[in-house]
């Protein structure tokens, strides 16, 4: 009994350590004056939505939101489509070089992205894609992790269904679209949420590929806000942070089961 109480209290202490920064952020975003950020006051007059209205008006915040949604959305949808097709082909379709291609996928997964930073930048300049959506989307449309995840998923997929469809005359592509894909919802959900969260928060590559504030994604925009308003306002940058984090939080809380399962499966196997 004592042991159980001890565990619960320890877990709750950790909850506090984990949540405290977020709670403070929420709190600071509603405080009107910068001087009050470090104290907790119950005086309701000190609170207000001033920070939010200010950053929406004086920045491209809505535009950044739009950019992030478009970029992350397109990457997620394309990624789901291309990765799943590739993962399926690596398992189910009898092609020569299947094994080599799988090893290639594994090899690509081991490449750290930093080495791609400079060449991708130079490539984007050569293509003329800098400061367009293309630079933010195309290099990231495909993800070897997604391919790997779906491959693992399809290895355990029941073959009988496919064989039955084949006898009935369905082509391989038909089998993929009408049978395999609709039944892969769990794998797709895991992949979708990993891709979504990773790309929503992506900072390093966009910071280099996009220099025009009108094309910034949210992380870039919020970075600008916190840098520029630093001297003048903590509260406004916290409002920006809340703005950026809420969608991810919501998406995550809804889909967390799939996310965690996706990580366990790629990680362990």
């Amino acid at each position, binding site marked *: 009994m004592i*042991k159980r109480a001890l565990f619960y209290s320890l*877990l709750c202490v*950790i*909850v506090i350590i*984990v*949540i405290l920064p*977020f709670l*403070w*952020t929420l709190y600071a975003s509603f405080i009107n004056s910068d001087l009050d950020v*470090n104290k907790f006051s119950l005086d309701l007059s000190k609170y207000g939505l001033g920070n939010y209205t200010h950053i929406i008006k004086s920045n491209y915040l809505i535009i950044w939101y739009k950019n992030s949604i478009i970029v992350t959305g397109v990457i997620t949808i394309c990624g789901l*489509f*291309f*990765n799943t*097709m*590739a993962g*399926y*082909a690596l398992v189910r*379709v*009898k*092609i*020569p070089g*299947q094994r080599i291609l799988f090893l290639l996928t594994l090899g*690509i997964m*081991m*490449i*750290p992205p*930093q080495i*791609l*930073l*400079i*060449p*991708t*930048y*130079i*490539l984007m300049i050569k293509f003329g894609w800098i400061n367009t959506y293309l630079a933010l989307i*195309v*290099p990231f449309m*495909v993800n*070897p992790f997604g*391919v790997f995840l779906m491959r693992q998923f399809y290895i355990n997929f029941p073959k009988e269904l496919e064989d039955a469809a084949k006898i009935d005359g369905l082509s391989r*592509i038909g089998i993929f679209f009408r049978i395999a894909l609709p039944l892969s919802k769990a794998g797709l959900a895991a992949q979708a949420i990993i891709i979504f969260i990773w790309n929503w*928060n992506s*900072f*390093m590559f966009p910071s280099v590929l996009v220099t025009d504030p009108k094309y910034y994604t949210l992380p*870039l925009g919020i*970075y600008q806000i916190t*840098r520029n308003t*630093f*001297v003048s306002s903590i509260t406004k*940058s*916290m409002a920006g*942070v809340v703005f*950026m984090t809420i969608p991810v*939080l919501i998406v*995550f809380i809804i889909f*967390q089961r799939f996310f*965690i399962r996706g*990580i*366990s499966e790629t990680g*362990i196997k």
Partner: protein
Amino acid sequence: MQNKKRLINFKYLQKEKTQEIFTGYLMLLPFLVIISVFIIYPVIYSFRISFMDFTFLNPSDAKWVAFKNYIVLFKDKSFLQSIKNTIKMLSIIVPIQTILSLVLANILNSKLRFKPAFRTIYFLPYITSLVAVGAIMVHLFSKNGIISRFLTFFGFDNVTWYADYRYAFYLVAGTIIWTQIGFYMVIYLSALQDISSTVYEAAYIDGANRFQIFFFITIPLLRYTTLLVLVMGVIATLQIFDLPYVISTTGEALSGSPGGTTLTMVMFLYTQAFRYFNMGYASAAAFIIFCMIFIITIGINSFKYFKKEF
């Protein structure tokens, strides 16, 4: 008559086989095209320009200088400091996050209620953008910030951590650990759930207490997972960029400030390439980082592949 039938069947099977191959490659096409253009070609290109004196301010002037970039790199104080910082981060971040996530996973694995809620909450720092996390921590740890004042009880000075020569590094390291624990805890949790309870029951019957079970049964059973967590941790730590960059460039400061104490290898690469535009030089640094990570990854993965009964 029989021979004619067999010939027709054979041709049909051939056609089906080629159709299957064609479909297969078609399905792989988008993936292969994009990784060829945006991953394989860039790696080769990066390797090539690392041997050139290539500054983006004057691209046509690029000339081949063989290993000069690499030689200069190893004399570059900034680069050496970034290597030192990154290794220092490795030695602090990886052990602490591994141990804490292991302990936390074990606590969460016992018969408690609200497990999914705890798990979700602990995961929150991991899914938050590092830009956001950096902005938050910078303020919480500034002079008179809530956490700075709290820590004065433990003997720390009340200063702005991200600007303090002594503390900035530990702010970065501590924040990284804070973001990563939930992730590795989840990995340990999945592994723990694969251990059947009969093992623990047998140990109980033999008279083992909780600590003995933890140290002599659970931990050895998690050998493989711990290796995975360690490797992932090492690779991720070698690549750290977002958080120290955001924290150290607060208030228009130079990246790596104060005084280069928070400079990681990737930050060095980034600054060389996009502030000074020394693409060739930066690519050489990138390639060194790439080799370090690639070798570790391949080494561990082939170890995993060839020794399946680990």
